[in-house]
C-alpha cells in the first residue's frame, strides 16, 4: 500500500484516494475541443441535459404511476395530473421532453452527416450514436404505452403487429412480444419494465460508449480539418489561447453550450407550459378500448418517416405482398443509417456545401424525409398513397445510390 501523508485540504484528501485532480483535468479542463465550431456543436450537451431532465421527471412519475390496465390511465390523468403537487409539471416535462429530445437527436445526427463526422476514424462515434438513436426510439415507444390511452393501445397494437410480417416466426414472435394474443396487461407490465429499467440502463451504457468514442478521433470542426490535437493543446497550455486551434471543454466549450442551452430552455419550457398538444395527443386522453379503433392511428412525429416508408408499399409486386415489401423497406430504413460510414465512399471530410455531389444528395435526403414525415400523418388515401410510395422508393434509391454518388465525387476530386 502506498504511503499516505496527512492531507492539508479536503480536496487533497479526495485527490489522494480518488485522483480527482487528474480526473477533472482529463474530463474537463484538459479535454480538448476544436475552436472552429458553431452552435450545432452544442447539441450533445443539450441532449445530455435533456436526458437528465427526462430521468429526474421520470423518477417522480414512477412514484405514482401504476402499471396495471385498470389503474394506469387514472394514475396518470387523475393522481399525477390533478392530485399530486406539481405532478402535472413532471408529466408535461416528461412528455414534451420525450418529443423534443428527438428533434435535438435529429439535428445532432444530420449535423454529423452534413459535416462528414462519421468517417476516417470517427466510425465508432457514429455507430454508438445510432445505437443511442435506436435505444431512444425503443424508450419512446415503450413510454408512450404507459398512460394506457387509446393511442397508447392502438400504436402498441399496430407496431407489435409489424413483427408478424417476419417469415416463419412472425406469428409466434408477436405473441412472445405481447405476452398474450392481444395487447393486454402482460404487454403493459413488460413495456413498463423495459421503459423504466432495461432500456435506460442500455442508454446510460451507450452514452458512456459514445463519449468514450470521442476521445481518440476527437470532435470534428466546421471545415473537417485534421490537425494534431496534442500540439494545439500544448500551445493552449503555453498561454497561446488565440493561436491554438483547440479550447478546453471546461470552461470555454461549455460557456458557449450553456448559452445555447439557455435559449433552448426558453423554447422548451414554452412548449411544456403553453403548447404541449403536439406531444400529448388528445386521443390519448380517452382510455384504451380494444373494441373501439380510433378513426386515425398515427405514431408520434419522430417515427412518422419510417412509418411512411412501411406504409408506402400498398400493392403487391410479383409474389410479395404490399405488407412484405413495406416490412422490407422499413427494415432497410431503420438499419441503413448505421452503415453510413461505409456508404460514403469518398475520403473527403468536408461540410456538404463544399462537396459537389454529396451536397445535392444531402438536401435530397432531407427533403425526402420531410415528405415522408408529412405524409406519414395524413390518411393514406387517393394521391397521398402514391406520394408515400414515391417518397419511400426515393428513400431506398437515395441510399443505394450513395456509394456510387460519393465514388464519382472522389474521382472528380482526384481528376482536378
Amino acid at each position, binding site marked *: 500500500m502506498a504511503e499516505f501523508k496527512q492531507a492539508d485540504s479536503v480536496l487533497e484528501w479526495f485527490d489522494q484516494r480518488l485522483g480527482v485532480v487528474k480526473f477533472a483535468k482529463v474530463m474537463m479542463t484538459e479535454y480538448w475541443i476544436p475552436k472552429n465550431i*458553431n452552435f450545432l456543436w452544442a447539441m450533445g450537451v443539450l441532449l445530455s441535459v435533456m436526458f437528465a431532465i427526462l430521468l429526474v421527471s421520470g423518477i417522480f412519475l414512477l412514484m405514482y404511476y401504476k402499471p396495471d390496465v385498470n389503474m394506469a390511465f387514472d394514475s396518470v*390523468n387523475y393522481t399525477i395530473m390533478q392530485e399530486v403537487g406539481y405532478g402535472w409539471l413532471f408529466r408535461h416535462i416528461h412528455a414534451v421532453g420525450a418529443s423534443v429530445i428527438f428533434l435535438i437527436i435529429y439535428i445532432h445526427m444530420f449535423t454529423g452527416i452534413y459535416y462528414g463526422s462519421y468517417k476516417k476514424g470517427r466510425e465508432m462515434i457514429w455507430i454508438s450514436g445510432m445505437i443511442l438513436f435506436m435505444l431512444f426510439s425503443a424508450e419512446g415507444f415503450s413510454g408512450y404505452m404507459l398512460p394506457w390511452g387509446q393511442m397508447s393501445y392502438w400504436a402498441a397494437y399496430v407496431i407489435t403487429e409489424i413483427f408478424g410480417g417476419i417469415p416463419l416466426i412472425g406469428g409466434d414472435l408477436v405473441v412472445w412480444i405481447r405476452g398474450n394474443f392481444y395487447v393486454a396487461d402482460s404487454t403493459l407490465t413488460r413495456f413498463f419494465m423495459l421503459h423504466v429499467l432495461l432500456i435506460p440502463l442500455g442508454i446510460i451504457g451507450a452514452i458512456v460508449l459514445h463519449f468514450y468514442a470521442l476521445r481518440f478521433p476527437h470532435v470534428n470542426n466546421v471545415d473537417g480539418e485534421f490537425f494534431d490535437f496534442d500540439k494545439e493543446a500544448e500551445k493552449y497550455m503555453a498561454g497561446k489561447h488565440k493561436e491554438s486551434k483547440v479550447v478546453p471543454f471546461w470552461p*470555454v466549450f461549455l460557456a458557449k453550450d450553456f448559452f445555447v442551452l*439557455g435559449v433552448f430552455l426558453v423554447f422548451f419550457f414554452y412548449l411544456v407550459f403553453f403548447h404541449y398538444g403536439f406531444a400529448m395527443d*388528445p386521443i390519448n386522453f*380517452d382510455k384504451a378500448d380494444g373494441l373501439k379503433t380510433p378513426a386515425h392511428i398515427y405514431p408520434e412525429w419522430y417515427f412518422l418517416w419510417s412509418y411512411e416508408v412501411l406504409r408506402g408499399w400498398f400493392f403487391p409486386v410479383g409474389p410479395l405482398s404490399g405488407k412484405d415489401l413495406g416490412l422490407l423497406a422499413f427494415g432497410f430504413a431503420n438499419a441503413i443509417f448505421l452503415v453510413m460510414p461505409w456508404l460514403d465512399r469518398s475520403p473527403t471530410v468536408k461540410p456538404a456545401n463544399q462537396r459537389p455531389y454529396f451536397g445535392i444528395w444531402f438536401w435530397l435526403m432531407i427533403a425526402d424525409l420531410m415528405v415522408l414525415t408529412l405524409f406519414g400523418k395524413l*390518411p393514406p388515401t387517393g394521391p397521398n398513397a402514391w406520394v408515400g410510395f414515391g417518397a419511400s422508393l426515393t428513400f431506398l434509391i437515395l441510399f443505394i445510390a450513395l456509394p456510387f454518388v460519393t465514388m464519382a465525387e472522389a474521382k472528380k476530386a482526384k481528376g482536378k
Partner: protein
Amino acid sequence: MKEFKILAVLVVLVGALYYGIEPYAHSVMHPEVAPANFAFDDLKNVDTSLKGNVENGKVLVEANCIACHAIETAGHLQIMSNVDAAAAYGVNPPDLTHSGRIYDKNFLANFIFNPVTAMKLEHKYPEGGAKAFPMPAYNWMQAQEIMDIVAYLQSIAPKVTEDKAGHEVTYKAACARCHSMQYAKLDATTPGDTLKTYLGVTPPDLSQHIKSRGEHYLHTFINDPQVLLAGTAMPRVGLSEKAQEEVIAYMEEIGDSKKAERESVGLWVMGYSVIFALLAYLWKRKIWKKVH
C-alpha cells in the same frame, strides 16, 4: 452571421414540419363543419314571439308535466327512485327546475311541441316506428299555451353563481342523467345497464373530454351532435350559449384543474430561463474574448 443563417434554415425546416404534421394534418383529418347555431332557427313549429303568461303556464305544467317530471324548486319532488324511474322511462326524466334557464327559449318551445325533431333523433325514433320516445309530443297545444309553459319555467328557474359551484349545477342539470364524471365523483343518475339498453351504448365518462375533445370540438358538438358524429345516440340538448359555456367551464375545472397553476408557473420558469440565457451569454462573451 453564419450562425444566424444556420438557425434560419433550422427554423424554416422545423416550422414547415410542424405546420404539416399539426395544424395542416389535423385540418385534413377533422374538416371544419358548420359553426354552432345557438338560435336553433331550423325549428319553426312554435311562434316564439308570443309573450307567455306565467300564471297560465303554471296551470298547464301542473296538468301536463308533473306526472313524470319533478320540479323541486316548485315543490314537486321526485316520486320514484332513480332506478325505478330509469326502469319505467328508459332514462331518468329531468327535474325541470333549471330547464327555463339552461335551454334556449326557441329550442324549449319547439321541444315541447315535438321532442324528437327538436333533438334530431328521427333516426332513432322514426315516425310510426316500433319504439316511441318516452315524452309525447305536445303538438296539439296552441303556440300561446306552449309559450305560457316556457314563461312559467323561466320564471321559476333559480339563478346560479358564476363559479365552479354554479357551473356544477348547470352541468348536472344538462348532462348528468346520462354521463358520469368519475373525476368529480359524479355517477350518471340513470343506472349504466338501463342506459345501455336505452341508448345502445354506454355514454362516455366526461372526466377528460376537455382534453380528448377540446373546447373547440365541444363547442360545436354539444350544440348539435349529429353534425360531427352522424347517427350518434346523443340528442341535441338545446343548451343556450351561456349554459353551454358553463358546462364546458365545469368540464375544464374538473378535467384540467391545474390550468391556472400551469400558466402562472410557466411564466416564472420561462422568465428564469431568459435570465439564465442572458447570464450565460455574458459569461460566454467574457470567456471567448480570451480565445478569439
